[in-house]
């Protein structure tokens, strides 16, 4: 094969692409407006978060006055109304965007597909899993993470102080005591899991520990937390987090009810999820994409 033959072959194969959709401009405009709406929402959330963080910072100063370092995290042993904190956090999740499988390239049909023993085989031969590890544990403390500002014109991201009004997103670090590893490689008894702290840091900091036992569907190497590579993140933008009720049933407070019901059909309890995690590895062919 010489280069002329390659040119000819490439031209012929390029025609296999066919014609672009006729509504391409509208689709691009739609994605622009979705981003604008998101920016607007982020702006509103930011305004609220700034106010809340301002209060949190003031509270932190008061705590420091009492000899407690607020930046080291929220001490869950302090007197808090656990049920109220959990309820406030669940409400903040429910009022958030909620995870929809339609929002992601891969739309799982069940929670079992988030286990590391399920591998997606993409058309070009790429293999991927939705998580790197799944653990059961509880949050012992939450501390402020980092805050960042993105300059759209410069296409650059800069870190700003956590309570800086220019911050466009914030992270929080939850220390998790691991009680059981359902899948993947987690050897530590305590891990750090990152969460977006855009909604309200104090609600997050009080609410996460109040939720009790949780199943964390974890990913490693998230770009959001590349400032500290050891931090895990929760799949699907922090939403695939299951609460374990006292009778062992699972609930998904950050997932849209339609998807939560569907995902929990096969594995409604921790026992059933544990059993699924012990099944042999399986490969799921994957052919559809978002949009």
């Amino acid at each position: 094969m010489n280069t002329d033959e390659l040119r000819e072959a490439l031209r012929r194969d390029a025609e296999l692409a066919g014609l672009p959709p006729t509504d391409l401009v509208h689709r691009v405009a739609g994605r622009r407006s979705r981003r604008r709406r998101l920016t607007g929402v982020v702006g509103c959330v930011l305004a609220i978060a700034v106010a809340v963080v301002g209060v949190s910072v003031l509270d932190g100063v008061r705590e420091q006055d009492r000899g407690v370092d607020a930046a080291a995290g929220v001490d869950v042993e302090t007197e808090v109304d656990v049920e109220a904190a959990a309820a406030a956090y669940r409400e903040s999740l429910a009022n958030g965007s909620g995870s929809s499988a339609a929002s992601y390239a891969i739309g799982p049909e069940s929670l079992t597909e988030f286990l590391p023993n399920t591998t997606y085989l993409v058309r070009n031969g790429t293999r991927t899993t939705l998580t790197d590890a799944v653990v059961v544990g509880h949050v012992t403390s939450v501390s402020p993470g980092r805050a960042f500002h993105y300059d759209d014109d410069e296409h650059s991201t800069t870190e700003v102080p956590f309570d800086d009004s220019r911050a466009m997103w914030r992270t929080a670090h939850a220390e998790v005591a691991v009680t059981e590893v359902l899948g993947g490689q987690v050897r530590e008894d305590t891990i750090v899991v990152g969460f977006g702290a855009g909604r309200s840091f104090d609600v997050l900091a009080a609410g996460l520990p109040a939720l009790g036992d949780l199943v964390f569907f974890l990913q490693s190497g998230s770009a959001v937390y590349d400032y500290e590579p050891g931090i895990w993140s929760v799949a699907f933008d922090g939403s695939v987090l299951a609460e374990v009720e006292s009778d062992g049933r699972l609930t998904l407070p950050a997932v849209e009810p339609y998807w939560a019901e569907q995902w929990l059909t096969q594995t409604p309890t921790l026992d059933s999820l544990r059993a699924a995690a012990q099944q042999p590895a399986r490969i799921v062919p994957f052919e559809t994409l978002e949009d």
Partner: protein
Amino acid sequence: MTMDSEAGFADFVGQWSPALLRVAFLLTGDRGLAEDLLQTALLKTSRRWSKLADHRAAYPYVRRVLVTTYASWRRRHRVGEVLTDQLPEHGGAGGEPVPTGRAVAALDALPPRMRAVIVLRFYEDLSEADTAAALGCSVGSVKSQASRGLARLRVELSPPADLLMHREDAS
């Protein structure tokens, strides 16, 4: 964007999106991914459209966005790719047209930057200097990537050895 620039952008998309989709298809090897890549590139371009001084020269700009976006996608999605520094001593049988669909499938064997170099050099017919500019790398890098890419494509597109043996036996 103003009304005028929106209309200009729409005209540009109407005129150039088929060509850009073909480039995206050669880069991704998948019609759905190609369309998504093109939409993403156009979305990025639309944000800068009013700042593009010469809209007639927008095609190279969008093509560059397309290629760099593709490279970043592949960095995220690529797993388990096995590279080799073994170069073939000779090409394939030659003289016979490559069956339709084989070339784009063979491109899957190349790392992303090498694939982009091959597509820009031998499909878009860019010079080595223009390819380097589009990819933001040196001309020397383009030369070496093109050379290695061609060598690997020759391997991918060569008839299987047992088939060659069979042909020789038959003759």
